[in-house]
């Protein structure tokens, strides 16, 4: 199974950003080596759709994240977003708009009291789940 590695700090930032976005979905970009499996940092963005059903990242935010990534010798390597009332699994809307087979698509489900973080590769309409490794994080993701 492919792997996505996050530091505990990045994991906590991502979950906190998602909780902070409630009741809407929250989102952000993953920065690191494109096609690699280790996230260097996240770029939390507003949800331009301001919706509990969909998310959208303003291209201006994507440009800012891309420039920041470039300055560090990285690229945008994926995206994360929350599902407020459903599983941490790509929805049909997610599938239809998952464009980059090299990106990691991270889902944070806030349905239950404990956030659930899972990650996927999406290529040619096929979903492959990957293991999310967060060294030092206690208990199930």
């Amino acid at each position, binding site marked *: 199974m492919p792997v996505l590695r996050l530091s505990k700090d990045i994991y906590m930032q991502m979950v906190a950003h998602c909780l902070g976005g409630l009741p809407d979905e929250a989102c952000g970009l993953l920065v690191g080596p494109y096609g690699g499996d280790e996230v260097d940092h996240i770029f939390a963005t507003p949800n331009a759709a301001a919706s509990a059903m*969909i998310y959208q990242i303003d291209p*201006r935010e994507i440009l800012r994240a891309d420039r920041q990534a470039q300055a560090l010798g990285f690229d945008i390597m994926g995206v994360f977003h929350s599902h407020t009332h459903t599983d941490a699994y790509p929805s049909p809307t997610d599938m239809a708009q998952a464009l980059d087979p090299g*990106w990691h698509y991270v889902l944070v489900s806030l349905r239950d009291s404990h956030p659930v973080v899972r990650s996927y590769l999406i290529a040619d309409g096929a979903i492959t789940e990957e293991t999310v490794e967060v060294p030092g994080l206690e208990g199930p993701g």
Partner: protein
Amino acid sequence: MAVEVRLPTVLRTHAGGASVVSLDGATIGEVLGKLVAEYPGLAGHVVQEDGTLHKFVNIYVDDDDVRYLNGLDTPVPDGAEISILPAVAGG
């Protein structure tokens, strides 16, 4: 006008892996035409057959979205950085 075009990761496989391509052109449309001439695999991925921008990309000249300027007719200043950005959205 000499400009640099930054490609999103999803399109780099169609451009021999390049992340930045240096091109000439007076307008966005001209620059993108030359980009596709150099990398025919990009045809249809940025500008559609009907001549409009693909809905899954946004094009910026430096800090401005060309959709809010003159679209493909937007002039490009010498040394401008043109960014082709992927649309990022879902449900």
